[in-house]
């Protein structure tokens, strides 16, 4: 990839405070195109807080986030349109079917992916037989799949920020998701993710960031 030398997202001297506790400080990271970053650390070490700072949902206590080399706050629109964040909450409505959910998520994100692409993503992630049922009658893992189907339909975002994407998934779905992640990296995208499960993702360049080193 030609852009592999330029950084996609970069943070310098980042520190995060929650309540009266300092979660981490002095954290630097650089992530370029095609790179996979696994954020590790014990429970409560600030993994979710770091991911929320990387996508702009939270403000860091100190330090700087840069998007494609510019201060992220000054290129906010470009930053938002370049990332896709999936938190541990699924953003799935009980009263909507999987397709309605996926359409609503795409619309809210301002993403104009056509309906047949969304439908194919749901079939690919193994919800083909459950397309017409409201999400309230889906299992926890199936609801997670509805949220993750956005990744399969996504071609716009450069950076995926995934908080515990493999939670509640069976081995089949884990395989589909890790293939989608590998494909995103091969396209020149980058991924930051957290997980407590060992999952093999095919990536040419990978980093591991252990937050326990920065506490």
């Amino acid at each position, binding site marked *: 990839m030609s852009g592999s030398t330029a950084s996609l997202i970069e943070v310098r001297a980042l520190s995060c405070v929650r309540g009266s506790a300092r979660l981490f400080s002095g954290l630097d990271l650089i992530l370029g195109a095609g790179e996979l970053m696994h954020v590790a650390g014990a429970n409560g070490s600030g993994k979710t807080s770091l991911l929320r700072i990387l996508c702009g*949902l939270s403000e860091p206590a100190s330090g700087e986030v840069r998007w494609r080399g510019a201060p992220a706050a000054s290129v906010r629109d470009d930053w*938002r349109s370049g990332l896709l*964040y999936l*938190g*541990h*909450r699924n*953003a799935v409505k009980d009263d909507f079917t999987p397709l309605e959910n996926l359409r*609503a998520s795409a*619309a809210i994100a*301002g993403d104009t992916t056509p309906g047949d692409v969304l439908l194919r993503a749901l079939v690919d992630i193994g919800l083909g037989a459950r397309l017409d049922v409201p999400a309230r009658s889906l299992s926890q893992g199936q609801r997670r799949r509805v949220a993750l189907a956005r990744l399969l339909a996504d071609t716009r975002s450069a950076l995926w920020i995934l908080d515990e994407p493999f939670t509640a998934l069976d081995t089949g779905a884990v395989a589909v998701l890790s293939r989608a992640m590998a494909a995103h990296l091969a396209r020149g995208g980058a991924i930051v993710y957290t997980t407590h499960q060992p999952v093999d993702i095919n990536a040419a360049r990978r980093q591991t960031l252990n937050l326990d080193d920065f506490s």
Partner: protein
Amino acid sequence: MIGVFLSVMRRDLLLAWRRRSDMLTTLGFFLLVTSLFPLGVGPEPEQLSHIASGVMWVAALLATLLSVQRLFESDEADGTLEQMLLSVEPLAVIVLAKVCAYWLLTGLPLVVMAPLIALQFNLTPDETLIACATLLIGSPTLSLLGAVGASLTLGLRGGGALIALLVLPLYAPLLIFGAGAVDAWRAGLGVQSHFALLGACLLVALAVCPLASAAALRIAQD
């Protein structure tokens, strides 16, 4: 921008349609509260027609207050709000779409129901028309101000009481202009100024409230 406005509005309307019972509670509350007054103050037609527009307005703003606190609740609980904050579309537009859907589901039914309530209070057809028109112009402002209160109190324990303290003082001018219109008409004065003031409140609220609400939501999610 129009695209996201329409799709968020359609989404909220569809969600509400799938949970119709939620919508009926607000309407039931409005009907019940207004029906209690004739029972409480006695059936003298003269007295009832004097308090009619005030009672309708107070009931409408309490009904709004009761339901508006749930405006962002489910989106916050399931993580949709995070996705709204991360959208490339302006958050204020998404908020405005949600408020529009909310008004169509709770404000507009109150306006439609108002003539029925006016009957209980012995209002003349002219007075009924004026009362309904004030509610039609005033209730969107109630929804918009309520949305700001809802985003400021989102995720707080005891948010229900707090939203009342925050929003009710802001509702006071609307109540004065709205309920005063029928009295002014009965006294033979023009009602034009009341409508002009209600309209002005609506325009200011339309311009300011979505932005204020969006800012409050960003702070609440930090």
